[in-house]
């Protein structure tokens, strides 16, 4: 009952014209970000973060979150019509979505992707409404040892779930943790690796690093002559799927929504992983697995629902625990912090307007996205016809402005450039930069909680084993590491590698 009343308060906030306008703007920009290849949700949110400085916290987070889940909707458009994932989580949609389009069912594929995304998003918000507040109450009991153990589990889980190898992911996370130590040590006042550059005293900002790795890095690796332009244009009259297609989509949407939400709660690139797992699951459960790759409806409905469910699920640990599960929630957390609102267990009690307004706006945002994506699909398709050679200078310009405007610092622009080159090199050597950004974000929280825990216990490591919650979390971490080690030493390719290989072959 209390939750229901709080949600009503949230709707009062979310339905204010100003908040509605920014939710709409976020959804629209998010769809564009998802549609346009070469600019993902992380780069989109990071670049547009400075635009929210003049807004209050609720409007800012509503708009930025709209960009995030809007990009999951938009990513399906390029996947289906061009066989190019506008966003990494839409990779699986390319396979059967584009095959459906080639059979003249592009409209139906887009409609199923949009409806699946809407249902998954709505179910995700319902679950978020129920799960996040009690989790936040529980987390109030967490002290430094519990937070340290939770962050360790997050990193190990990220590595375990990653489609690249465990060691590669841990290396990237370590690199991110290391970058996170640049700047003044808040406990002792020592300058670390700032090389007499004043701006580095505050540490490396997440925005220049994220925009460099994901925005500029992508542009550096994509010369315009390599950008594909073959777009299939659906007719609006063909948007409605037939009865057989609806039937085939029902269960995959339900399974994908739930699976996506659960995976979203776990740290890692959940929205990407969830679509891979959903595709594999649907293929395994299908009575006609041979149809997968040739236009199977479940191959579109399942992954699209899963990636949207996951993007909503990712908000649970961010809002309730103050812990980001990936780079995008990390930037959203940074946005809240910029507005003086610390995400975490106290968010629900101290800032109910922000928390419940945000949750309610997601119900509204999902409706907006459904209304936006179907009738305006023709407009988005036309955007894809803008030559990439004219598009990327615009993105570079926005990267420079966006990064500079955060602190009015040219040093941040240099950091972005350096990280762009690093992102380009990482791509060449098959490293995933997402754990790096996650490491950078959690580094200060991790270091602070670890050092506080050690000071509390007078240097005794036993403190992590004496407290039930931290012991459980560390045992889970050890179990995951043991599983990975077993897989490695048994010289067997595990399910993630097989899945990635299968996806690579089919794409």
């Amino acid at each position, binding site marked *: 009952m209390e939750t229901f009343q709080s949600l009503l308060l949230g709707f009062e906030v979310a339905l204010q014209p100003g908040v509605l306008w920014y939710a709409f703007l976020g959804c629209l920009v998010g769809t564009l970000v998802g549609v346009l290849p070469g600019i993902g949700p992380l780069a989109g949110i990071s670049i547009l973060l*400075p*635009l929210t*400085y*003049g807004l209050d916290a609720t409007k800012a987070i509503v708009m930025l979150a709209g960009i995030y889940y809007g990009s999951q909707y938009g990513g399906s458009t390029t996947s289906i019509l061009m066989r190019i994932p506008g966003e990494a989580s839409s990779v699986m949609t390319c396979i059967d979505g584009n095959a459906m389009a080639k059979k003249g069912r592009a409209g139906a594929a887009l409609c199923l992707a949009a409806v699946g995304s809407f249902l998954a998003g709505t179910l995700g918000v319902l679950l978020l409404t129920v799960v996040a507040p009690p989790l936040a109450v529980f987390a109030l009991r967490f002290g430094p040892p519990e937070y340290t153990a939770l962050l360790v589990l997050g990193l190990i889980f990220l590595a375990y779930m990653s489609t690249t190898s465990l*060691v590669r992911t*841990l*290396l990237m996370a*370590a*690199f991110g*943790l*290391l970058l996170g*130590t640049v700047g003044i*040590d808040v*406990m*002792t006042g*020592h300058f*670390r*690796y700032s090389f007499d550059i004043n701006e580095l005293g505050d540490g490396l900002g997440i925005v220049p690093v994220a925009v460099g790795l994901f925005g*500029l890095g992508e*542009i*550096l*690796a*994509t*010369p*315009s002559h*390599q950008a594909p332009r073959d777009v299939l244009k659906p007719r609006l009259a063909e948007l409605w799927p037939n009865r057989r297609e609806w039937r085939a989509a029902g269960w995959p949407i339900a399974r994908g929504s739930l699976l996506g939400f659960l995976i979203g709660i776990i740290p890692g690139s959940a929205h990407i992983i969830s679509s891979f797992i959903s595709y594999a699951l649907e293929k395994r459960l299908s009575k006609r697995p041979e149809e997968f790759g040739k236009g199977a409806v479940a191959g579109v409905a399942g992954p699209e629902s899963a990636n949207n469910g996951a993007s909503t699920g990712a908000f649970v640990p961010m809002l309730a625990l103050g812990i980001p599960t990936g780079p995008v929630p990390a930037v959203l957390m940074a946005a809240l912090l910029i507005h003086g609102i610390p995400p975490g267990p106290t968010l629900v009690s101290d800032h109910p307007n922000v928390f419940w307004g945000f949750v309610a706006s997601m119900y509204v945002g999902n409706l907006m996205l459904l209304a936006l994506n179907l009738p305006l699909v023709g407009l988005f398709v036309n955007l894809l016809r803008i030559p990439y*050679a*004219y598009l*990327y*200078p*615009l993105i*570079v*310009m*926005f990267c*420079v*402005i966006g990064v*500079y*405007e955060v602190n*009015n610092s*040219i040093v941040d*622009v*240099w950091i972005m*450039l350096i990280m*762009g*080159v690093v992102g*380009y090199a990482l791509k*060449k*050597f*098959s*490293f995933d930069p997402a754990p790096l950004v996650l490491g950078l974000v959690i*580094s200060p929280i991790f*270091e602070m909680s*670890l*050092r506080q825990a*050690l*000071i509390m216990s*007078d*240097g*005794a*490591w036993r403190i992590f084993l004496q407290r039930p919650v931290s012991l459980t979390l560390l045992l889970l971490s050890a179990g995951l590491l043991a599983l990975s080690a077993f897989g490695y030493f048994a010289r067997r390719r595990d399910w993630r590698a097989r899945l990635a290989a299968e996806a690579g072959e089919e794409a």
Partner: protein
Amino acid sequence: MKLRTDHVAGAAFVALGAVVLATSGDLPFGSLAAPGAGMMPITIAALMIVFAAFIAASASASPPMASVDWSDRNHAGLVVLITGLAAAAYRPLGFLLTMSLLVFSLLVIVERRRPLVAAAYAIGLTLFAYWLFGKALRSPLERGLLWF
């Protein structure tokens, strides 16, 4: 022995970790009961060296270095160079001039587009961004040489 991508990547990260350790000399490590400013970076750098060495040691499954496609290097190099010059010129020249030049240079030098079309596009785009950031969103943009 054939040089593979993970040999190079692993060696690069080992070198990075070593540089971090070498430059951490003035940071106090402290003790477990009172951890110092150097404890976290030194521990993480050591871990990074271990992970990187493992990757380099098990590089046999990675592709040969010669198979990496570097055909986009000219494009990447030019974009970095032009954006770097724009970053250096941003404060002295200001928003309007720098951004127009940035877009124009990318179109003409990297994309080999006709200068007139590129100039029109660059100016139009910059004016739009100026209106969006400077006027609609009231972000303080660098004025530089211009008076507005």
